[in-house]
């Protein structure tokens, strides 16, 4: 039981996709301009991750080793397209905001990485937990970075303005340099915390 729970909590902190594994960094920089975008992107990726991990785990004995990457990519690409179509139909505003980064979930190293490192070796339930844990970890990281960038760069929290009237936000944080900077500085914070608490 604790082993299974371990698979879930692993993705949250110990092997957090963004701050530890450093996988799937493109959306981290590009999409984190508002809290909703960061959260939405994280959830979309998490859903793809869950579907893919489960499918790969179910089919793992029917995938010969030499074609495994090709098969993984096929499965992942299909899942991403499914999520893309669903978003286009039911969350059109988020779909527009995330734009080209939705199909780019296909090449998110995290998704392919978990299929390769975990789902093709472990059982379905464990793979599902791994996906959910990693998905949560990724969403948490994206949302955190988005919150920082949105507060500093736009003076709002999930579009609710929180700056005192007349105060001007630091626009830089919404723009590309701010993305690099926020990620870099949060990285530094995470590294320091890890060293201090020996995680």
């Amino acid at each position, binding site marked *: 039981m604790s082993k299974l729970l371990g698979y879930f909590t692993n993705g949250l902190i110990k092997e957090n996709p963004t701050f530890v594994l450093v996988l799937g960094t493109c959306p981290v920089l590009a999409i984190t*301009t508002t809290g909703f975008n960061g959260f939405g992107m994280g959830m979309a990726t998490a859903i793809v991750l869950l579907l893919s991990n489960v499918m790969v785990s179910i*089919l793992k*004995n029917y995938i*010969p080793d030499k074609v495994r990457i090709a098969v993984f990519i*096929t*499965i992942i690409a299909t899942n991403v397209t499914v999520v893309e179509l*669903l978003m286009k139909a*039911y969350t059109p505003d988020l779909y527009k905001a995330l734009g080209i980064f939705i199909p780019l979930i296909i090449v998110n190293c995290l998704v392919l990485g978990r299929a390769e490192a975990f789902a093709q070796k472990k059982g379905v339930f464990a793979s599902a937990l791994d996906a959910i844990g990693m998905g949560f970890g990724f969403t948490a990281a994206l949302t955190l970075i988005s919150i920082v960038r949105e507060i500093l*760069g736009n003076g709002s929290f999930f579009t609710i303005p929180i700056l005192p009237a007349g105060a001007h*936000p630091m626009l830089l944080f919404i723009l590309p340099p701010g993305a690099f900077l926020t990620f870099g500085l949060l990285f530094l914070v995470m590294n320091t915390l890890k060293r201090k608490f020996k995680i």
Partner: protein
Amino acid sequence: MAKMESTLKNMVLSLSLISMAMVAGLGYVYKITKGPIEMADKQKEITAVTQVLPAFDNDPIKQKKDIEGLTFYMATKGGLPVGCAVKTFTTKGFAGRFDLMVGFKPDGSIKKIVVLDQKETPGLGAKMTEPAFTDQFKEKNIATFKLKVKKDGGQVDAISAATISSRAFCDGVQKAYDLYMKNFAKPVTAVAGVSDTTAVKGGKHE
């Protein structure tokens, strides 16, 4: 059961069968989301048109007209024209093209403008979606209101540090106004409300 061996037959079989299953599943999802996707697009159109027009009781979407790349949605109430929503665009934005929905009253004055699709810089040009910028156009008639940014000798308050986006915005609205005037409306003359009174006098239309 151990993993399948990597023989040529197995590899081809596995890849083909799985691919076919994936494509089939995808085709199915495509089919069932087609309707909702069209609905979502339509809903956006309806929302935008309704936002910029006064109350109406016809179906402007059904009766929309496309002229020179812009789309015109005539709105009537009780048979009388109450306004026209114009979907316009400009390619002079900082990040390229963006679309606007401008709501005109029958005399050519602006009821409201909403920005549709835009990719301007967040915090700068993107501020043009906010009422702080768009509200200044309400009730203005282009015949008397200089539709250029103050820097260019006009009366429009540009967004600070986003002159290009502001200029492009004016460009889009100007396009809409010019084509609207050319094809649909009579510009307001010195006597305000002339068009309205003729409409009322006329009684029933169509």
